[in-house]
C-alpha cells in the first residue's frame, strides 16, 4: 500500500481545512498506526458530523520534526477500531463512540467515558433508546472471579474535598489485581458550548476547563484564536504568559510535593508546602489580581501589564519562597522513611508509557522526554528554552523528583524572564478568524500537554472545538500503575499523578 501523506501544521498555526487530506478510513488507520510506530504520538482524535457520516480528524505530534500532522476520514456507523494496533487511541475511540454514536469494531473495552447522550439523536453506540436514562458509572466493569477475590468501590463521593470519580478495585487481600476508573460526573458540555464562538464567554470557558490549569488552557485557547486570525501577541505579552504558566506549574508542583508528604504521613513538608503553595499563588495574584491566573491571558496578548516595581517585587518574593521550598522539599527527599514509601511504588515502564501515550510529568518520570515546551515551542518558549526534566524509574519517587527538578528550572526561567522584560505593548487586536480552517494549539501545562483544536466554518466561527486535557491521556496510566500494588498505596499513586477530573470530563 502506498504511504499516504498527512498535512503538516505547526503549533498554534492554522491551515485551510481543504489542505488536510481526506482519506479512506482504512488509509488513515494505517497512517496513524505507522506514525505511532515511528515514535510519534496521538494528540487528538476528533469527530464532527459531515453529511450522513462522521468525519474523524486525527492529529499527531511529530517531536523529531517539531510539527504536527493531521489527516481525516469519513466513517459510517461502524468502523474498524484503531486501538488494537495503537492502544493510545482507546480512550479517544470511546469518546467518539459516545459522542457520535459510531462503533469502533474490535475495540477491546468499548464503554462510555462521560455518560452523556449522543450528539446525534437516534444514533447510540450501545443501541440505547433516546429516552433511556443514562446514569454515571452504570455500565460493565471488569470482574475478577475466584475464592477470596473481593471488590472495593471508592467514590464518587470521597472523604476529602476532591472531585468526584468512581474507582473500582479487584483485590486479593491487600493486593490490587486491577483498578477500573469511571469518570464523567463533571461533564458540563464545554466543547459544545464553545462551538459558534469565539465570543465574550469563550475565554472564560477555556479558563474554567480545569481550574488548576487556568493559564495553560487560556493560553492554548488564545494561541488558537491568534493562529486563526493571523495575529501574534507582542513579545512582552508572551513573557507575561510564560511567567504565569511557570508560576502555575510552581504552585501546583509545590502543592503536590506537600500532598505526597501528607499521604505518607510526613508532616513537616506537608505543613510547609501548604503555606508555600499559597505564597506562589499570591505571586500569580500579584500579576493579575487572581490567584489562579484568571482574566490574565487573552487572545492577542495579556490583560495586565507589569510595572517595573511589580517586576522587582515578584522576583524578590519568588526568591524568598524558593528558599523555603528548597528547605521543605530537601527534608522530604532526605528522609529515609519517606523514600521507603516513594521508591518502587506504582511503577510504570517506559514501554507502557509509550503505548498508552502518556504525557507530562507522568511520561517524563518514565524517562520519555515529552515536553511541548521543547518539542513544539510556541510563544516565549521559541526564544528561551526550559531544560526537559526526566527520571527513569517510573515510580512515585520519579514523579515527585521530576516535579522537584521542574520547580527549580521553572523558578530560574521566571527569574531570567523577569530580569529582561522587553518594552512594548501587551496586547494587539485580533482580526476576524479565517474561515474553513483548522488550527491546533498545544501548551505544556503543569500536568502535561494541553491540546486545543478548532475547525472554523466559512464565516470564521468555530464549527467544531476539541479540548484534550493531559488527564485524558493519563488516567489509564494510573490504573496500570496500581496493578500488583497494595491497595493502601492507591492514594499515594493517585496523588503522584494528580489528574484532573473536570479536565477529563469537560
Amino acid at each position, binding site marked *: 500500500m502506498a504511504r499516504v501523506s498527512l498535512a503538516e501544521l505547526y503549533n498554534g498555526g492554522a491551515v485551510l481545512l481543504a489542505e488536510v487530506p481526506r482519506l479512506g478510513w482504512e488509509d488513515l488507520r494505517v497512517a496513524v498506526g505507522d506514525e505511532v510506530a515511528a515514535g510519534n504520538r496521538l494528540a487528538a482524535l476528533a469527530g464532527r458530523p459531515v453529511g450522513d457520516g462522521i468525519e474523524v480528524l486525527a492529529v499527531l505530534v511529530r517531536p523529531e520534526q517539531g510539527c504536527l500532522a493531521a489527516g481525516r476520514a469519513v466513517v459510517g456507523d461502524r468502523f474498524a477500531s484503531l486501538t488494537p494496533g495503537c492502544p493510545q487511541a482507546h480512550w479517544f475511540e470511546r469518546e467518539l463512540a459516545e459522542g457520535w454514536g459510531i462503533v469502533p469494531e474490535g475495540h477491546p473495552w468499548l464503554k462510555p467515558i462521560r455518560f452523556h447522550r449522543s450528539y446525534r439523536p437516534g444514533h447510540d453506540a450501545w443501541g440505547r433508546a433516546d429516552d433511556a436514562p443514562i446514569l454515571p458509572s452504570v455500565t460493565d466493569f471488569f470482574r475478577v472471579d475466584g475464592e477470596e477475590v473481593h471488590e472495593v468501590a*471508592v467514590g464518587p463521593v470521597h472523604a476529602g474535598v476532591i472531585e468526584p470519580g468512581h474507582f473500582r478495585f479487584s483485590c486479593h487481600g491487600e493486593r490490587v489485581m486491577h483498578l477500573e476508573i469511571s469518570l464523567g460526573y463533571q461533564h458540563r458540555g464545554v466543547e459544545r458550548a464553545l462551538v459558534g464562538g469565539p465570543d465574550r464567554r469563550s475565554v472564560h470557558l477555556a479558563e474554567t476547563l480545569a481550574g488548576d490549569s487556568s493559564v495553560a488552557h487560556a493560553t492554548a485557547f488564545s494561541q488558537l484564536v491568534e493562529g486563526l486570525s493571523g495575529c501574534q501577541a507582542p513579545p512582552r505579552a508572551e513573557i507575561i504568559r510564560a511567567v504565569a504558566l511557570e508560576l502555575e506549574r510552581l504552585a501546583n508542583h509545590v502543592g503536590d510535593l506537600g500532598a505526597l508528604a501528607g499521604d505518607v504521613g510526613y508532616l513537616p513538608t506537608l505543613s510547609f508546602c501548604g503555606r508555600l503553595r499559597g505564597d506562589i499563588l499570591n505571586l500569580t495574584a500579584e500579576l493579575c489580581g487572581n490567584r489562579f491566573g484568571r482574566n490574565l491571558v487573552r487572545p492577542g496578548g495579556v490583560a495586565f501589564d507589569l510595572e517595573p516595581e511589580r517586576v522587582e517585587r515578584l522576583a524578590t518574593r519568588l526568591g524568598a519562597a524558593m528558599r523555603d521550598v528548597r528547605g521543605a522539599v530537601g527534608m522530604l527527599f532526605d528522609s529515609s522513611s519517606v523514600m521507603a514509601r516513594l521508591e518502587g511504588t506504582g511503577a510504570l515502564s517506559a514501554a507502557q508509557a509509550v503505548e498508552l501515550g502518556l504525557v507530562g510529568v507522568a511520561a517524563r518520570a518514565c524517562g520519555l522526554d515529552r515536553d511541548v515546551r521543547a518539542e513544539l515551542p510556541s510563544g516565549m518558549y521559541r526564544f528561551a528554552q526550559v531544560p526537559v526534566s526526566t527520571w527513569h524509574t517510573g515510580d512515585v519517587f520519579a514523579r515527585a523528583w521530576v516535579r522537584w527538578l521542574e520547580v527549580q528550572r521553572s523558578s530560574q526561567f521566571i527569574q531570567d524572564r523577569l530580569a529582561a522584560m522587553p518594552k512594548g505593548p501587551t496586547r494587539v487586536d485580533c482580526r476576524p478568524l479565517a474561515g474553513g480552517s483548522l488550527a491546533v494549539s498545544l501548551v505544556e501545562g503543569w500536568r502535561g500537554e494541553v491540546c486545543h483544536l478548532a475547525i472554523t466554518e466559512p464565516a470564521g466561527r468555530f464549527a467544531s472545538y476539541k479540548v484534550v486535557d493531559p488527564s485524558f491521556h493519563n488516567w489509564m496510566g494510573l490504573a496500570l500503575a496500581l496493578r500488583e500494588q497494595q491497595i493502601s498505596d492507591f492514594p499515594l499513586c493517585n496523588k503522584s499523578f494528580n489528574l484532573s477530573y473536570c479536565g477529563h470530563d469537560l
Partner: protein
Amino acid sequence: MMPSAVGMLVGLVLAPLLLGVVNRVKAVFAGRRGQPLLQPYRDIGRLLRKGAVYSPTTTWVFRAGPVVGVAAGVVGLALLPLGGCRALVVFSGDFMLLIYLLGTARFFVVLAALDTGSAFEGMGASREVAFSALAEPALLLAMAALVRATGMRSLSDAMGKVWSDVWLPSMPVAVLVAAALAVVLLAENARIPFDDPNTHLELTMIHEVMVLDHSGPDFGLVLYGSALKGWIFAGLLAGVLVPLRTGSPWLNAGAAVVGIFAVAVGVGVVESSMARLRLVRVPQLLVGAGVMAALAVLLVR
C-alpha cells in the same frame, strides 16, 4: 487505697488530654499554633450531645462496640499501677486480665466494624486483627519479662520493684521491655508509623476506618475509649521508664503522671519526624518488638 483511687480518677479525667498534648507537639513542629489543648474534651462533649445515626443493616453488636471499649478501658484503669503507686485492684495474674480486656475491646470494635457490611470497614478490621495478632504477643512477653525479673505475679508488685529488680541488676532487660512497649503503644493506638490518625484517605486507614460509621454519642465513646487505651499504654511505658520508687505513693503517682505526658510528647515527636510505614512493613516492626520482648524474657537471670 486513697492514692490508688485518686490515680484511677486522674486517668479517667486526664486521658483525653494526652491526645491534646500529642496534637500540640505536632503543631509546634509544623510551625502552627495548633488546636486548644482541651479540644479532645470539646469534641467528646459535642458528640455526646448529638444524635446517632444507625444503618438499618447493623444490629446490637454495632452499638455494643463503643460501650465495651469504654467499659474495658475503665476496668483496665483500675488494674493499672501508676508507677510505684499500686492499682486499685491487685491480684496475682492481673496483667493477663489487663491484656485480655484490651483484647475484648478490640474484638468488639472489630465486630462492630464487620457488622456494617462495608468494604472499607471489613478491610480495616482485617488489618487491625492481622496486626494485633503480632502486637499482642509482644505485649504479653514484655509483661512476662517484668514479672520474671521481679518475681512478682501482679502488675502493681512488679512495677513497684522495677528500679531495684530490673533497672539496677539487668539494664538490658529494662531497655528491651521499654522498647517493645513503645512499639506496641504506637501500633495499638493507631499512631505513625503504623497508622495515620489524621488522614482522610480511607484506603490507608487501619483503626479510623473501622469507626467510620459510628456517629454522635457512639463516636464520642469511641474517642473516649481510645483515650483510655492510650492512657493505659502510656502508663505501662511510663512505669518502666520512670523508675522513681519512693516511700510516698503520692510522689510515685505524680512522677508517673509526668512520665505519661512525657510519653505523649515523645509520640508527637515521632509523628512529626517520620513517615508512615508501607503497610506490608508493619508486621516486620511488630515482630521486631516481639523479638525484643522475647529476648528480655531470656535475658532475665
